[in-house]
């Protein structure tokens, strides 16, 4: 694997290429494993792996290269420690009552607060969580997301669409529940 070649190649040194993406690495790991201490362990392990395989890095999108390693590290961790997370089947039918009025949904979505969004995103299955994080928090293109997740661009698009639908429904659901609770008081 060219493990010994670690000098500055045409693509730069490990320090220049990989270290700057630690925030992105941590953000992805934190949203995948959903707690800070496992996330830190994931990033550390991924960075040691990245160092080991840096000889094989051919240039190109360094952030995607790093995030791919972080993602693989997290998925190995799931396989070993939380297999249920990967098997999680999505209940696609938590439909909330259709909002009839045009613009009503947008208004509701805009009123969702930070805690609600955090919870809704945390509750998504891992494959949906990751596309939302990569697209909306990391601002990656379909192509970059495809590189990180190792699936075709078409799959990224459809996954993202389903993830957004789920996220919206969960938010509207949470919002509706809160509204009901508020009325009862």
């Amino acid at each position: 694997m060219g493990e010994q070649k670690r000098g500055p190649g045409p693509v730069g040194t490990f320090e220049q290429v990989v270290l700057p993406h630690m925030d992105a690495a941590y953000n992805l790991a934190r949203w995948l494993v959903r707690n800070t201490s496992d996330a830190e362990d994931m990033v550390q392990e991924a960075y040691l792996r990245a160092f080991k395989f840096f000889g094989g890095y051919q240039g190109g999108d360094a952030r995607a290269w790093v995030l791919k390693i972080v993602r693989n590290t997290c998925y190995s961790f799931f396989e070993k420690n939380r297999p249920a997370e990967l098997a999680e089947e999505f209940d696609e039918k938590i439909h909330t009552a259709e909002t009839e009025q045009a613009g009503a949904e947008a208004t509701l979505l805009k009123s969702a607060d930070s805690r609600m969004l955090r919870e809704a995103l945390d509750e998504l299955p891992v494959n949906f969580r990751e596309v939302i994080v990569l697209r909306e928090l990391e601002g990656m293109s379909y192509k970059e997301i495809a590189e990180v997740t190792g699936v075709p661009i078409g799959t990224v698009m459809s996954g993202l669409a389903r993830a957004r639908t789920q996220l919206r429904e969960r938010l509207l659901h949470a919002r509706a529940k809160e509204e009901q609770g508020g009325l009862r008081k």
Partner: protein
Amino acid sequence: MACENNKSLLRGYFDGELDLVRNLEFEEHLKTCPDCAQELGDQQALRDSLQAANLYERAPESLRNRIRAALPAEARPQPIAMPRRPVLEWLAVAAAILIAVFLGAKVLPNIGGQKQNLVAEEIVASHIRSMQPGHLYDVESTDQHTVKPWFDGKLDFAPPVVDLKEQGFPLVGGRLDYVDHRNVAALVYQRRKHFINVFVWPEESSAAKLPEVQTIQGYNLVYWSHNGMNFCAASDLNIAEIRQFAGLLEQ
């Protein structure tokens, strides 16, 4: 719901993934399609909420330091002199040193201050080297009855080997190491993703007593002696957990 024909165009438009021609086409379509316009508004509302919620999680400084310390020297930013630490962390280091000095003075007779530092630094260097790929163990086993006999004939003493899997510190292997001018046993335990090296060597051979607790380059060392053996546990794990671990080993 957006009109079925244009669903994927709408997604591509929303994510800025359309080429110029199709972008213009879709903008024309939007003018005459209230469904698509509404769907786009809903998508934008979701995105606005996500942006406003500050969900991005940045890497804590302690993690950066930990990773820099774990990486081999040539990968670290130059110059490597003294990474900047937040005040709190300095306080923690200062507190650790105070505790170490206090305990060291109280519990252990302090013989040869310089020498003990050399030994502690040797241990940290060995620990760091062991974390590099392929250096962690000579014998990889979670079975104490495999690890213990492996040392037979390699050392002039028999290190006590126990598994602490039940207590959350599984034994993962062992190796020969060299500290304080002699061959020593290094037992490797794991706590979550952290490895703990326990260096074991006979008491009489060592002139140096280490402080009970110290922190060097971000690694925590806990030292004790028991039944004629010196033990030093080294890890990037927090001091509280290493001490808990040491307590378990001592029993």
